[in-house]
């Protein structure tokens, strides 16, 4: 097909047919401000910030949706364009709360950035401020409709990418609001707490439920023994909050910072991941042997698990009964660790640092505890940890390195790659192959399962059979593959489902980033760490071997089942 030639601010540019004016401007190296536009989402064209002047056109056009055409002459910074953009920002600010200084998005707010970039110095309009109640019904996600600018990005990611539609636009005109049906709150609907809406919200209309106050309190209570676990994806992103380059691996500085905050023990969720691999690997071999409950679907992503409970209750038998690494870890902290070090479980306050908001929900599930105690007492996201480090005045970038504590800080490279889509599959394959064949795996890196495609498939030879695996990231893709399985159009032995695009590295609790390659950069940090690890297979982690020898007994045995496995329940979709 013939390429389109057009001129953007007197720069000639060629683009493929089907491109928008915004695409063409990017190609010409011209920056056009955007707000409702998001590269991962369906186009909407509702905010009009990206307007441009197109020769021969009477009105300004929204460049994010306007198709580029041959011979088009576009001006992106003429007086009328600049004035219009300013007016739009002023109108948005006219009924926006004026609490920027104490807003959690101060410094990461796109509306604030726009106002600054467009040199808005006064707001000529005075609008009525809205007075909606905060939605604090969910343990994971807080909605503040008063800050909402109605760009619709949250609705689009929830509806199109995640296929959940927990929120939507209600009302019209000046009374329009993004809300849950009948304003019942996120906790009552099918929200899976994945937090992807937070990730795309340009302002603070959506944010995580902050648990840092609770953690500070525990840290300040000398009668409590504070134990923290940190998920793999956190170390691949935390540095971004302190000005380090995206993709910087900050494991040792992160451990040092957690010690400075005052945690008595700093452990690694990757230990929990290794344990999950061993349990889930044995479970898979067992299901294959009996030829039942196949395909086995992973259960480490709590957003996915909740999604399955709401939308595919009839397929819950396929979901692995293994708890997630976070919850396996929590169960061990309150039993194994407590016994081994002679500390009463009730005196332990256990914090998990996660790239995920759904982990807050997971930790609160009533079945995730024993003797009236939850296994994980508080979950904070990567962002909340960054806030705590800043609040404590810790100079993160210049911290001396520190190592995880033993024994629950010891992990394999397989545990590391849990944080990226395909990682769980690769980790399970490394162990299942050796457990099944008794032979050593020569090439531990399964390139076939790596990458960022929404659905990836691979066939792995395993002791005379061919293991068919699929790797899925995002719930919209999960819906597709589950429907295919239901219709008998696809068949696998093992499916890894991660609720978020890219897996945990793209989780709803990760730092806000405008880097289009952020997921690749964070992923390569994890693959780098895996590559450098001495032990790369979960079942070879010496601390895991010791755990089974001295405490758990057999993988999938009675004690393992009691502590490390769980059950699911159907939840209503409507």
């Amino acid at each position: 097909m013939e390429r389109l030639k057009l001129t953007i601010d007197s720069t000639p540019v060629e683009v493929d047919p089907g491109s928008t004016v915004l695409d063409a401007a990017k190609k010409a190296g011209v920056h056009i401000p955007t707000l409702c536009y998001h590269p991962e989402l369906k186009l909407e064209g509702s905010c009009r910030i990206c307007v441009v002047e197109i020769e021969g056109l009477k009105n300004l056009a929204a460049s994010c949706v306007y198709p580029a055409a041959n011979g088009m002459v576009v001006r992106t910074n003429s007086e009328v364009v600049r004035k219009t953009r300013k007016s739009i920002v002023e109108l948005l600010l006219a009924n926006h709360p004026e609490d920027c200084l104490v807003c959690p998005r101060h410094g990461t707010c796109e509306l604030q950035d726009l106002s600054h970039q467009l040199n808005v110095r006064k707001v000529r309009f005075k609008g009525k401020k809205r007075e909606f109640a905060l939605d604090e019904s969910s343990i994971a996600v807080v909605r503040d409709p008063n800050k909402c600018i109605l760009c619709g990005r949250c609705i689009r990611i929830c509806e199109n990418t995640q296929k959940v539609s927990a929120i939507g636009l209600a009302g019209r005109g000046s009374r329009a609001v993004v809300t849950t049906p009948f304003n019942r709150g996120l906790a009552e609907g099918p929200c899976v707490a994945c937090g992807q809406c937070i990730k795309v919200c340009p302002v603070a209309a959506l944010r995580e439920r902050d648990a840092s106050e609770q953690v500070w309190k525990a840290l300040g209570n000398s009668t409590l023994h504070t134990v923290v676990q940190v998920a793999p994806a956190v170390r691949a992103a935390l540095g971004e909050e302190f000005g380090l380059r995206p993709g910087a691996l900050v494991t040792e500085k992160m451990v040092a910072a957690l010690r400075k905050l005052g945690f008595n023990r700093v452990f690694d969720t990757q230990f929990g991941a290794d344990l999950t691999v061993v349990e889930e690997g044995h479970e898979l071999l067992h299901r294959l042997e009996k030829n039942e409950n196949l395909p086995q679907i992973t259960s480490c992503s709590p957003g996915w698990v909740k999604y399955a409970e709401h939308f595919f209750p009839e397929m819950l038998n396929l979901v692995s009964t293994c708890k997630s690494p976070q919850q396996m870890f929590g169960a061990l902290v309150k039993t194994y660790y407590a016994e081994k070090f002679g500390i009463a479980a009730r005196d332990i306050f256990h914090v998990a640092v996660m790239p995920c908001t759904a982990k807050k929900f997971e930790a609160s599930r009533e079945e995730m505890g024993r003797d009236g105690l939850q296994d994980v007492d508080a979950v904070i996201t990567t962002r909340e940890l960054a806030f705590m480090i800043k609040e404590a005045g810790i100079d993160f970038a210049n911290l001396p390195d520190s190592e995880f504590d033993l024994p629950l800080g010891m992990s394999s490279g397989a545990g590391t790659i849990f944080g990226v889509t395909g990682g769980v599959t690769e980790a399970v394959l490394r162990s299942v192959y050796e457990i099944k064949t008794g032979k050593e795996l020569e090439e531990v890196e399964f390139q076939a399962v790596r990458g960022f495609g929404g659905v990836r498939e691979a066939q792995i030879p395993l002791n005379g059979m061919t293991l068919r695996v699929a790797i899925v990231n995002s719930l919209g893709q999960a819906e597709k593959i589950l429907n295919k399985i239901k219709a008998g159009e696809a068949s696998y032995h093992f499916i890894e489902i991660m609720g978020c695009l890219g897996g945990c590295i793209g989780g709803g609790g990760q730092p806000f980033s405008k880097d289009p390659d952020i997921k690749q950069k964070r992923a390569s940090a994890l693959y780098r760490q895996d590559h450098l690890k001495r032990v790369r297979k979960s079942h070879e982690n010496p601390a895991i071997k010791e755990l089974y020898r001295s405490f758990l007994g057999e993988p999938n045995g009675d004690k393992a089942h009691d502590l490390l496995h769980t059950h699911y329940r159907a939840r209503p979709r409507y």
Partner: protein
Amino acid sequence: MSDEKKCITCPGCDGARDPKYDEVDKVIAKYRNLEGALIMILHQTQEIFGYLPEDVQRYVAKGLSIPLADVYGVTTFYSYFSLTPRGKYRIAVCMGTACYVRGAGSLVSAFEKELAVKVGGTTPDRLFTLEVSRCIGACGLAPVLTVNEDVYGNIGPERVSGILAKYRDRQ
């Protein structure tokens, strides 16, 4: 039995499935494969129930296998749909430009006074609901109002009590 099967319109009901839901089933079956059927289905469902209570919206969403947020978005967008019970007679005073300049405002005040309810309200006897509407395209008759399907044009506040009496007598 799930909640939506229970009767929700008649207090004191024994909880058996309201036969109105059978009618909704028919409406859904008739239109479900048509693109953009939701508005039509909600329209007819509102005729069946008189308004669109939460459980009924939930029932429609389930019946069409679409998110409840989509249904709620539509029912709160169009002023035609009501989420609260309405009276037997629905008075809609046109507040389009022509009617407005010809005194629709004083008409509304007169109705509010006569019925002792504000715009959007329903009289305690569930006989009248007072609403205002956008332009209904009968500007030649301005100011104009409708009571259910009946249209009244060139109306002044002095005729309000007469119109109401007509419907009170009819019930």
